[in-house]
């Protein structure tokens, strides 16, 4: 029997949702400062409207649903899934007002793509976008990458138990520190330290590349946010090709890899435990899958003679592979070149890399390295069982911060999430084909959206059917939250309608 949700459930959900919306509202202050700094009047008005609407909704909800109760698991999950939809709708307001989007749906697509750190874009005339709006596009990635709820956890949420439920709901099932609020603060500390270092590095490279100082550091900050949060937006329409610079590509590649690493691993590296990087199942799996997928891409590109020199093949092939595998989506070629020039084999290599993703508790999307590692360990265990005498007890271990024995529970969980991702990739591909796009193009774009990558083969365009835009928005949302919160929300609605 399904129980109908109580009025109290709605109140608690509304109250915490309001807190998250207030948190989002305050983040609009950053682009407001930027608009003031660069004397951009219209963008200033756009962000003031967005700030006011968010605070009205946020304070209104907390006022209407005031409660002292802490969240339970179901409520925590629903707050998270609704928060992501709410911030998308509100974060799209300044984008839509900017005039760079053909419809509010396109602005919502851009906002979800930013928050979910995907990087697919529908922005028009990006080369004439204001500093404030451009910063907001990248800031959505920084906020979404660290976790929208993590902002609220760090500042507004007092109850630790409820905070943990929201933290888990946002696809972060690992605590770096024993206290989840301290974990959230640590994640912000790491991100801000890297933000300063990354902006400096990219800014200096930009200046050496001949950019004006202000632009070099502005681009540096934006590109850092997109790279570390494995997002993929860039301030100019040509993405990373705009810079025509090998050093810029090298620095962004390092930042992308840092972004794809588990925050827990970052913590251990910060604490001086450098051996962990060679032993951890995630980094080992990442290295192996990078090599395998690069081998596929390299064969594909060399067979077609896309790049006449091996060095150029490596530069283009490896950059896009790292960009896809880490879920970033930076590109130094035009979207159509993937289909027109790269050929099927290289595309399959990139699709596989995109589908796999980076580390758990990082800013990447996709299946993730820990799950792939666990599945392969389970496979190895089963093969050993077949090979050894029946009475032999086969125990499989893996190293993830500490030595862990492989349990059926973790294997089942890894398989379930992997299956859910594969279904999500397939569903988007089927809808893409239904809209008239070829199979490989549809699979490429669907995987890119669902794994929160952002590489495009040209389907993502303002002219694509609205149903496909909505499909990709939902894929980005479900892929970023890793399904549980989304399933909880669906269950909640079913219970509200059918429950007794």
């Amino acid at each position, binding site marked *: 029997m399904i129980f109908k949700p109580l009025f109290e459930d709605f109140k608690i959900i509304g109250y915490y949702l309001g807190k998250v919306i207030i948190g989002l509202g305050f983040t609009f202050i950053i682009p407001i400062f930027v608009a003031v700094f660069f004397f951009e009047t*219209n963008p200033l008005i756009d962000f003031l409207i967005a700030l006011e609407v968010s605070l009205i909704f946020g304070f209104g909800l907390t006022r209407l649903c005031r409660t002292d109760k802490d969240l339970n698991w179901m409520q925590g999950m629903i707050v998270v899934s609704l928060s992501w939809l709410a911030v998308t709708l509100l974060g799209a307001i300044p984008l839509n007002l900017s005039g760079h989007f053909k419809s509010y749906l396109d602005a919502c697509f851009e906002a979800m793509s930013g928050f979910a750190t995907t990087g697919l874009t529908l922005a028009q005339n990006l080369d004439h976008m204001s500093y404030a709006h451009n910063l907001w596009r990248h800031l959505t990635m920084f906020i979404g990458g660290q976790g929208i709820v993590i902002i609220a956890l760090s500042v507004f949420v007092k109850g630790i138990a409820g905070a943990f439920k929201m933290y888990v709901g946002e696809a972060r099932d690992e605590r770096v520190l024993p206290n989840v609020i301290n974990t959230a603060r640590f994640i912000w500390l790491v991100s801000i330290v890297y933000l300063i270092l990354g902006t400096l590095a990219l800014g200096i490279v930009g200046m050496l590349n001949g950019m004006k100082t202000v632009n070099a550091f502005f681009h540096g900050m934006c590109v850092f946010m997109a790279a570390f949060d494995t997002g993929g937006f860039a301030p100019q329409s040509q993405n990373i090709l705009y810079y025509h610079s090998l050093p810029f590509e090298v620095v962004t590649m390092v930042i992308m890899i840092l972004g794809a690493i588990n925050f827990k691993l970052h913590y251990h590296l910060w604490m001086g435990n450098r051996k962990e990087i060679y032993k951890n199942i995630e980094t080992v799996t990442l290295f192996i899958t990078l090599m395998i997928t690069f081998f596929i891409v390299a064969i594909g590109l060399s067979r077609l003679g896309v790049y006449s020199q091996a060095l150029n*093949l490596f530069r283009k092939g490896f950059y896009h592979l790292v960009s896809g595998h880490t879920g970033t989506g930076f590109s130094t070629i035009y979207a159509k070149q993937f289909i027109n020039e790269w050929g099927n084999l290289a595309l399959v290599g990139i699709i596989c890399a995109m589908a796999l993703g980076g580390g758990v508790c990082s800013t990447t999307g996709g299946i993730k390295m820990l799950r792939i590692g666990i599945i392969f360990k389970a496979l190895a265990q089963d093969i050993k069982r077949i090979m050894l005498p029946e009475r032999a007890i086969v125990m499989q271990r893996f190293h993830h911060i500490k030595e862990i024995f492989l349990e059926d529970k973790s294997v089942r969980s890894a398989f379930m999430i992997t299956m859910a991702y594969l279904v999500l990739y397939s569903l988007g591909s089927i809808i893409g084909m239904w809209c008239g796009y070829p199979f490989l193009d549809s699979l490429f774009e669907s995987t890119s959206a669902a794994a929160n990558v952002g590489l495009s083969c040209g389907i993502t365009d303002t002219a694509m059917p609205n149903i496909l835009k909505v499909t990709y928005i939902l894929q980005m949302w479900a892929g970023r939250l890793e399904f549980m919160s989304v399933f909880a929300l669906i269950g909640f609605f079913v219970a509200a309608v059918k429950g007794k």
Partner: protein
Amino acid sequence: MKNACKKLLLSAIFLVALFSGSCIIAELSFAQNVTSVELINNAKFYDGKRIAYKGEVVGDVMLRGNFAWVNLNDGVNAVGIWVKKELVKDIVYTGSYKFRGDILEVEGVFHRSCIEHGGDFDIHAEIFQKVASGSKLVETQDVNKRNLVFILLGALCLILILNQLKMR
């Protein structure tokens, strides 16, 4: 007879030279005008050919030694142009939020994956001319949006006051 043959041979050589010369001149002076979409969709066809491309200068003009990178946007995509440093001196405005960039027409060799530049998609320009000057863009304020800011501010203050009253 011998002289006639000699004259005929010389005339033939002259005609061949004239034809080849005019072909080269035609190739140099009548580079095909192409758009970014045509270049991207038919990159293999245009690879290594001399083309003409027109667009607005966007972003920074990035000086690299004796050369510079200029990105030209034709309204759909921007393409990187590799050009000698002295040719970019005429550029005054570059496209951004506050400026419409100069419109330039370039002629040069298109590279689908440039060997010199790590496989980039670019044009190495030899002729580079400004066809229209850019300008400063004037921001026009939307009165409705400005009024909305004040209406929403009133609503927000009301909610905050109600919140305070409830807390007391």
